[in-house]
């Protein structure tokens, strides 16, 4: 399975990025990707010849949606986040913080749809197939998610002022 290892090494960063969009936490993202890759290992001969990135990102979304993580009280973040100086001063880390807060305000299914549509670049039909929902539901989730995000103050500033974009 040398080609599996080679694929994992090459695809790892983009899979972890996709997983972060779902979990909002890099270590949970790493855990999620590892879980999915361990499951995919046994099916690799079927996956490898047919767009493995799309397949694995769909697995990330479905695993995320059915995955009940331990909810440790100790993990609940309590510290106040620093105020940002302004859009012009936004560092990549602050951009990440704003996007994370905006994404976490969405229901998990909408987050999964956004990741598949706009990060994995799946079509509406492929997204619907991956999540086992209708194309209409994908459209509805996408529209609702974008509406919510447009109303998110930090994200609106980020886009309208064009700071990192």
């Amino acid at each position: 399975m040398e080609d599996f290892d080679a694929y994992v090494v090459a695809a790892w960063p983009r899979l972890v990025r996709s997983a972060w969009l779902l979990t909002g936490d890099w270590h949970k993202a790493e855990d999620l990707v590892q879980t999915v890759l361990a499951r995919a290992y046994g099916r690799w001969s079927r996956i490898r010849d047919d767009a493995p990135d799309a397949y694995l990102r769909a697995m990330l979304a479905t695993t995320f949606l059915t995955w009940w993580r331990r909810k440790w009280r100790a993990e609940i973040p309590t510290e106040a986040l620093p105020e940002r100086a302004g859009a012009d001063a936004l560092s990549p880390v602050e951009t990440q913080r704003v996007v994370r807060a905006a994404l976490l305000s969405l229901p998990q299914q909408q987050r999964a749809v956004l990741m598949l549509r706009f990060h994995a670049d799946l079509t509406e039909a492929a997204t619907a197939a991956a999540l086992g929902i209708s194309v209409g539901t994908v459209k509805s989730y996408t529209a609702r998610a974008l509406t919510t995000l447009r109303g998110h103050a930090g994200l609106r500033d980020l886009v309208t002022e064009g700071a990192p974009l």
Partner: protein
Amino acid sequence: MSTSDMRTLLDEATRELPADVARAPLGEIRHRVRRRRARRTITVAAVAALVAAGLVPLLRGVPQPAPDPAVSRPPANSLPWSFAYRDGEQVRLYLHRQDCQVLDAPVVAVEPQGNTAVVTVTGTLRRPDDCTRAGIPMVELPPHSVGAGQILVDPVTGRRPPVYDRAHLPVAWRGLELNGYGAISRDAGPETFTVSYMTRKPKNLEVVTSQVDIVGTDPAKATQGGVPLRVGPVDGVLYDVLGEYRFLWRVPAPGGELGYEVTPVRLRLSRAEFIALLDGFTWR
């Protein structure tokens, strides 16, 4: 915000990958593959052995009685709960797993019926602003509202969820600070309840602290390859999953039997070290 903005934004937000997650941990992924295969093998072998012995019904745990008609009509806004945890006089109920929900204005009603108590939870589940803050919806019973020997009944499901008890744990753990609680359920499997404590430094192990999970589990849990082990006055089973040792023991409880399991977290202990860890606790 256009869809093009969204693509750019998501790319921008994930551009900076922390160094500690930037490289693919091939060794850890291989380890997970082996663990997955071992678990599957253990489960299949255990089920096969139990089928041969005619013990499959035990896998379902304590037999559940038919719902009592008197408790089968809870208020419309009642919420189902999965398990309870007693810590001295404090009894907390943990609701069925929820996708990012917190419980507002909970009300608990306890209706004693002989040796059982019907415990109804009502309240409003609300979506919080930040799902990472949600945790598991949990509600505390009024003090002294249920007795230690009473069987608790959830009127929504008609079931008798397990009531785990800190008093069942080794004495040495009773004074320890609770690190957290949780529920685990993957692949549509049943939920298991966990509580976690930070133990003090065991004298005979070179670790500063060890986080130990107590897992409330099915008493009939199959422990393929397990060996009987007596720790203090407690008879249990020592088993391992790919070198990660666990100790499972059973405790009589109202209406049946509870299973508990000790699991060291983020520690790789040898068999001797794990047994030394168990021996280091005062069990009764």
